[in-house]
């Protein structure tokens, strides 16, 4: 498999935005160097010819875990909501969603 292009500062800025992280200019520089170093090390994996090898996402195969659809006790609603930063009428409260009228 062809090796992917080297990680750039713009890639890191893009990925940070996807991951909802704000990075300072210094952090962008630092992480670009560090992540590129890790990806360079991973070139041994990226450059292998593994055509025909099945991927393993999970080492111990467990499939279709089902149970009878019977009501059971669940977490206490008030105990769960007590941990939320902001609650209104038994629901999680958030600031306005982007694009809505204030």
């Amino acid at each position, binding site marked *: *498999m*062809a*090796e*992917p292009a080297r*990680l750039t500062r713009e*890639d*890191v800025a893009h*990925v*940070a935005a*996807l*991951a*909802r*992280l*704000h*990075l300072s200019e210094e*952090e962008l520089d630092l*992480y670009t160097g*560090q*992540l590129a*170093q*890790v*990806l360079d*090390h*991973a*070139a*041994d*994996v*990226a450059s*292998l010819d*593994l055509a025909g*090898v*099945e*991927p*393993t*996402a*999970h*080492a*111990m195969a*467990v499939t279709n*875990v089902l*149970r009878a659809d019977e009501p059971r006790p669940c*977490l*206490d609603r008030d*105990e*769960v909501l007590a*941990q*939320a*930063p*902001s609650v209104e009428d038994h629901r*999680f409260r*958030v*600031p*306005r*969603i*982007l694009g809505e009228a204030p």
Partner: protein
Amino acid sequence: MTAPRPALETATMVRAGEELAVDVLEHHLAVIDAGEEAVHAFNLVLADAARDQARAVDARVAAGEDPGPLAGVPVALKDNLCTRGVPTTCSSRILDGWRPPYDATVVTRLVEAGAVVIGKTNMDEFAMGSSTETSAFGTTRNPHDTSRVPGGSSGGSAAAVAAGFAPLALGSDTGGSIRQPAALCGVVGMKPTYGTVSRYGLVAFASSLDQIGPFAHTVADAALLFDVIGGHDPLDSTSLHRPTPRVLTVLDDGVDGMTVGVLTEFLDGVDPDVAARVHQAAEALAAAGARIEEVSVPEVALGLSAYYLIAPGEASSNLARYDGVRYGLRVDAEDTVAMNTATRSEGFGAEVKRRIMLGTYVLSAGYMDAYYNQALKVRTRIIEGFAAAYTRCDVLLGPTAPTTAFAIGAKVDDPLTMYLSDVCTIPSNLAGHPAISVPFGTGDAGLPVGVQLLGPALSEGTLFQVAAVVEAAAPALPAPRLTTGAAS
């Protein structure tokens, strides 16, 4: 400091009414009181709650009941194991103050077995690290030399056991996070087969790799704890339905007629003082009747690279849940996306951000085939490589970590060098296999060395059996002095 009394002995005495659980607890609280400032093993010591649990154990004994196999034994919990109503932080500011509304299954099983939960231990933030230095609450120090790291990510649990703060502790192991700190602190640490211990209530890092496992001073105590926490749990959909090996009963079975493979790839680049102890352990196993072979599994050399594509990928997905909405930290902002971003930027430390970005990158369009999917195929190759070795060998032997405990600060600015600390432990996680680290004397600087035994899936019985022989042959460790500079 005298050698700590084994948990097996304590539980036997408490069950027989020969010792009170409250006295056992007070002894350990006093040891913590004297040593915790030097070590910083705990995020939280649960003295009052533990006293209540100990009194309940004593009341059951007084009433003629059997509190269980861990009666009155204090156990320290890594702070990524949920405890109902008790702060569970993962050593991250983003969960500072969070009180889970439920107990992890392992916590429920401990309490049902009569154990006393003595505290929540420090760790690398979200278990991402090999030194406990990425904790948001300060570094844990190695009890054998407080200028050095205890290893990680379960460094607090390893240090707590080494320092005599608790005879037993639980940690989690995603790429070596139980075994590597166990080796660096001179205690026993074991990662079970994936799916044998329920992950319900373990805060997720990389779900296909994470397993909970025991820390103890002795192989027998680790076996005791594993037998209590193992077994199927309907609350974890990856929990195996097969019977979990019971290990406490096989410890005296010996290694006569077994074949032990010394894994050559694990000795590449390892410090000579560590390698010498591995060879010495092999000689001891040979003397006990095992056949020793050199075995090569070339695929394990790819483990580190594959792991640092797979684990961050899974982590970037798992840690998306910390968005300031349902629990933990919220940093207010004018709209929800800005609030999510502000919360995550302030709540996560540098290593967690680094792994989230690495994971997001390798899962993103255009790179997923080149990195993540390739790593999953390497995982297949590693499993095949181990399978070939296990047609000839019962277990494999190697070092747990390539070095003894390193100085605090020595690797923290160089992520790749830090990641190399896990080069010998990662392959077992990728394969889902069990492995155990057993203390085996010291290296050149007088610091503990751990040797590692690896086996195929569900071979815990064999691993503990061999581990008991290794332990019996191991050179003695100096008692930790909780000061800088190792004992000589």
